[in-house]
């Protein structure tokens, strides 16, 4: 999996910003044909897609939203059935994406700008029963490990890993540090969230692999384990914050040149996304209402993208 | 009433079920004794359902094929109508070899010249009585108005005109079979097959239907092949009876022939239950001679003479047949057999 560090991504973007200055204004292209944006399963991605779509509409484009499974939708992007997907977590793209990227069927147009995090989390109350937390040393403490143990993992403590199909770094890191833990694959994101909710409600101990931003983190108070030093800096042995990028179909820039510039400039802050997730998932507001509100309130943010692309 | 011209003729007809029935009948014809072939077929896992059947059906006669279940009578009638292909033999219908006609010709023959009534009625459950009767005409491609008019006429013939819109499920068994009869008669066939038409009905209804059948036949004068397992029914209806056992026809003759001169013990045991006085007719026992007094009808059953016999009459002239008489002794001999057998 291609994996760039945050710094590299930022500098690349800076470079892109320099090369695509205002001088390079583009024509709008096929305005009558709707741009099909992927709506992936999770709220964050849906918010990003809606905002990107609404900004594109402001620029005079038609937009269709296509609900799509994360893995299958790469095939759609490669074929042009889906024109763009604006929130792709590069740590979770399966095997299709690298292939179609290498074949030039899709184009990575840079970071969405989210500040991401990935690591091991635990419900906050555990700091009372394992006082050494958030240090990783706590996970060596037999008393603490005993709290985590289950029939399946005895005598080790249970560590809830990513679903098996996402790949497992946690098992490697546990082995690197000879922690008395057994990594158990969770099966799905829903399973992880359900466990976290239940653990916090019933005060049952839990340590699991997770990432941010995620709406559940606004609902359940968690702590992040301070990770042990990496054995080496590779993706296998070390957890680094994942990149979240925007990806378009290879024919996008030709068909909708200005929209291409707008999406390239499209960036979005973690705080904004998290607030909207909270409004939708916890307060039950509609996706459409929340994103419309954001677009209305943040013209200062998106107007320059349009101007730069269209003027 | 029965003419001498032959409508359907079969010679050495064979129908065999089993893994490779064709093997036993090469094109030049089988040459061994049928009895031996039947034995061999059975030993080698085949069922000779019809073995070496030979008979003619004359125009206008009621030819009854009778036998117990498993005797091959239903198979035989299906061979005659070509619902089943025969293994061997000659089957001629109005002089044409029925076993060689193409599918299209066969369909044409069935559409115009054959009708068939089935034991389980075979009515289309999704069609009304009228539509069922009109079905053969519809299949021929007749337009709606004429075929419904014809179907209505047929329903009137079987006295069911009032139920033309009823579905089969709404009709009684007897009524359903009337529809079946009307349907088989709708294209005005020349050869009429009836495969145990009344066996599924109650005894009382059965009797009624038999009478009705005879009434129809007097009116229509079809050539009829009638299948039954009931010897009484056979004797009531038949001009001639073919008796089957184990795939073979063991005797062909008039009811009186079968009853009075059984070919073997099997036929004799079969007919033992029959009250002869109710099955034998005056014409069956008539002999040359002369007599005085009121004549008796040739088709009258012997039992109708009992009162006269009791009064001591010795001879009866036969109506319309001068020179023919019925001797009281002959009648008494039959009655004696009834008493002994009963």
């Amino acid at each position, binding site marked *: 999996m291609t994996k760039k560090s945050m710094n590299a991504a930022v500098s690349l973007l800076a470079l892109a910003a320099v090369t695509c200055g205002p001088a390079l204004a583009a024509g709008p292209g096929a305005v009558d044909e709707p741009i099909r944006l992927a709506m992936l399963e999770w709220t964050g991605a849906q918010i990003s897609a809606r905002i990107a779509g609404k900004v594109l509409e402001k620029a005079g484009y038609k937009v269709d939203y296509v609900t799509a499974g994360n893995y*299958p939708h790469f095939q759609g992007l490669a074929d042009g059935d889906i024109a763009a997907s604006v929130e792709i977590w590069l740590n979770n793209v399966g095997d299709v994406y690298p292939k179609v990227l290498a074949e030039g069927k899709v184009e990575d147009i840079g970071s969405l700008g989210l500040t991401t995090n990935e690591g091991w989390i635990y419900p906050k109350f555990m700091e009372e029963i394992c006082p050494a937390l958030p240090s990783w040393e706590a996970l060596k403490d037999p008393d603490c490990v005993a709290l985590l143990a289950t029939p399946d993992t005895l005598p080790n403590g249970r560590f809830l890993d990513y679903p098996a199909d996402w790949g497992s770094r946690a098992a490697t890191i546990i082995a690197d540090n000879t922690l008395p833990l057994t990594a158990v694959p969770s099966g799905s994101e829903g399973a992880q969230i*359900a466990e976290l909710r*239940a653990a916090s409600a019933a005060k049952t101990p839990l340590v699991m692999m997770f990432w941010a931003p995620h709406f559940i983190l606004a609902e359940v108070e968690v702590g992040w384990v301070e990770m042990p030093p990496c054995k080496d800096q590779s993706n296998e042995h070390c957890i680094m914050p994942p990149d979240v990028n925007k990806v378009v179909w290879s024919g996008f820039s030709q068909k909708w040149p200005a929209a291409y510039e707008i999406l390239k400039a499209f960036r979005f802050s973690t705080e904004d996304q998290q607030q909207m997730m909270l409004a939708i998932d916890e307060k039950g*507001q509609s996706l459409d209402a929340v994103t419309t509100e954001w677009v209305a309130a943040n013209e200062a943010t998106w107007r320059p993208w349009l101007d730069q692309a269209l003027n | 009433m029965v003419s001498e011209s032959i409508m359907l003729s079969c010679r050495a007809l064979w129908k065999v079920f089993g893994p490779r029935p064709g093997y036993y009948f090469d094109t030049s014809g089988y040459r061994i004794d049928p009895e031996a072939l039947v034995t061999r077929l059975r030993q080698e896992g085949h069922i000779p359902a019809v073995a070496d059947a030979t008979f003619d059906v004359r125009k206008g006669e009621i030819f009854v094929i009778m036998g117990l279940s498993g005797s091959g009578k239903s198979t035989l009638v299906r061979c005659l*109508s070509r619902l089943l292909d025969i293994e061997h033999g000659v089957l001629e219908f109005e002089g044409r070899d029925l076993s060689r006609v193409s599918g299209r010709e066969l*369909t044409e023959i069935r559409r115009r010249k054959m009708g068939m009534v089935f034991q389980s009625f075979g009515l289309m*459950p999704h069609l009304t009585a009228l539509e069922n009767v009109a079905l053969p005409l519809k*299949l021929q491609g007749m337009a709606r108005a004429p075929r419904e008019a014809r179907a209505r006429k047929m329903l009137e013939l079987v006295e069911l005109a009032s139920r033309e819109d009823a579905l089969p499920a709404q009709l009684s068994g007897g009524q359903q079979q009337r529809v079946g009869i009307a349907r088989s008669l709708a294209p005005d066939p020349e050869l009429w*097959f009836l495969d145990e038409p009344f066996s599924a009905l109650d005894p009382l209804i059965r009797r009624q239907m038999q009478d009705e059948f005879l009434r129809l036949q007097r009116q229509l004068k079809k050539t009829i092949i009638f299948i039954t397992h009931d010897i009484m029914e056979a004797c009531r209806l038949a001009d001639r009876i073919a008796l089957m056992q184990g795939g073979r026809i063991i005797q062909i003759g008039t009811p009186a022939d079968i009853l009075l001169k059984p070919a073997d013990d099997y036929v004799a045991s079969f007919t033992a239950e029959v009250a002869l006085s109710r099955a034998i007719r005056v014409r069956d026992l008539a002999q040359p001679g002369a007599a005085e007094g009121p004549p008796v009808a040739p088709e009258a059953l012997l039992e109708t003479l009992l009162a006269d016999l009791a009064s001591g009459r010795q001879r009866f002239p036969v109506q319309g047949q001068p020179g023919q008489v019925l001797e009281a002794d002959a009648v008494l001999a039959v009655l004696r057999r009834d008493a002994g057998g009963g």
Partner: protein
Amino acid sequence: MARFSRSERLWAVLLAVSALMVVLAHQMPVLRGFPTALTLPLSEALNAVITPVFEALRPIGRLLSTMIEAPLAAIRAGLAWAPWPATVLGLAMLALYAGGRRLAVFALLALGVVALMGYWPKAMNTLALVLISVPLAVGIGFALGALGHLVPKARAGLIFLLDVMQTWPAFGYLIPLLLMFGFGPAAGLAASVIFSIPPMVRNTMLGLDEVPPAIVESALMAGARPGQLFWQAKVPVAMPQLMVGVNQTTMASLSMVIIIAIIGGFNDIGWEVLSAMRAAELGRSLGAGLVIVLIAVLLDRITRGFAGRRRGVAPRWLGPGLMAALVLALLLPGEALLPDEEGQRWLRRLDAWLLGFVAWSAPVFAVLRNAITYGVMLPMRLGFSGAASPMVWGFALSAPVTLTYIAVSLGGVVALGCRAPWRGIGFGFAALVFWTGLPGFPWPGVFLLMGFATWRAGGAGLFALAMGALLLAGVSGLWQPMMQSIYLCAVAVLISFAIGATLGVIAAESDRFSALLRPVSDTLQTMPQFVFLIPALMLFRVGEFTALIAIVLYAVVPPIRYVEHGLRSARADLTEAAVQMGATPWQLLWQVKLPLARGSVRLGLNQTIMAALSMLVIAALVGTRELGQQVYVALSRADAGAGLIAGAVIAAIALVADRLLRAPVA
């Protein structure tokens, strides 16, 4: 012992060989798991073949998908344009026509609930999918069924194909379909059609085969040509059975809505269920699941209503009524009438309740979970030899413990074997499996036993199928996942059958209980199984136990249905005779009714196994290590070959289990 029959002697020899292998396996690890040295890169090889083939099929796939998508878009647009009161009215009138007043009231209520929960647009998208996939499946299924009826030689192959289509997990062939049709509803629709064709084919064959011979003969004697015979006699007579096929196909097609949503592109109810599952929101997923249940029940009753009526003329009010609905649709603005977010908010409240319940009940469920894990699952998985450790059972596998186990096993075999050899042999195998645990049973032993059993029960064909599947699993490195799958299904089937059969017995005795149980069974069977995963996860946490619960919830329905049906249809004269002889209710049940219902009970067991196997893939969502998980991993990696192989092994297990159970006990 002279009383041994030949097959008993053979089984006894097999038992001895297996025992020897179990003993040897302690010394020779090569006997324990399928040797890795024997694995081959099968999935890569398969991919090298499949990928080009399906990519070559691409143009056809694209053509087909455009052909499908045009009418789909039209139906979708039509349903989206009609304001929901008009659609509700139209459907209610259809229900009134098909099933009478009660069905119409149900239709009004059900659709009203759908609209109030805020799922109307998504439900209409789902309806559009069903309206496209059902006619396709019915058409193809009818054609195949007619083929099977008219060409008896094609039949054996066709039936095998149908069995495979129904047992092969759809997830396993999504990737090739995606390659062929590209992204969009067409790939999902194709999967749905593949899965829902078999009931139509089976019912078509059954219906056409069972047309009474008198009908066929009477049509022939009336002068019907082959075409006329088929269309004017056989098809109309078989129509009620064909409608049963349409009904079952509709249900199967609805159950595939979620699979279509995995690919996405359609914003339907299935998508909603998946999204809610992803966010672990019980309320939302329950609401969306309820929509599917309601649509399923409604379509079921309507199609059954049509199947039940022989012929009918549309009543006079139907035309004007539908016109009125149309006028209403033209007059009313579409979206303005949709209720706002209130329904959704209400659904979300369920989640708070669930969390409260979890917090309150966690200790109780922890005890339940531990009891079954320690008592049933671990011994079945690790075996006595693995579970007898200080960590699990509190005592170590010392020499005396081992000797005691051996002594008890041998004693049991001899004691039972003296009375009835079968029991002794059965006990012997049970003791062996209990010692190693199912997944740890020596692999040559599995080959040997399966080979022998399939050969005796089903002859060469079944033998080849079973051996092929075992070999395929072993060679492609799926031996452990396969044994895990078998173990998980075995435990689930044991539990489901015990619970389901008990409930079925009670339901057969009590009409009131039966009436109470029926909607529960209906819901368990039509509710997307994903919905049950969320509460199960919260109560029992990630792992095999939750998977077990999810499987049991689904697989418990067939034994309830079949046992109840079997007991209720026990012949009245025989039960009366038994009562007359003075049988107590208990004797009546065990000695008369259950033996009489044996066929039905066995079919129930068969269906329980099928249901459990079909849940494997879904159970993988809560973290298991079996074949279902392999199918998932393959799906996410877009590894068509691996998905097909794992799917094939699951299908083969199902087929072998089915054939073994159907064979007369030998």
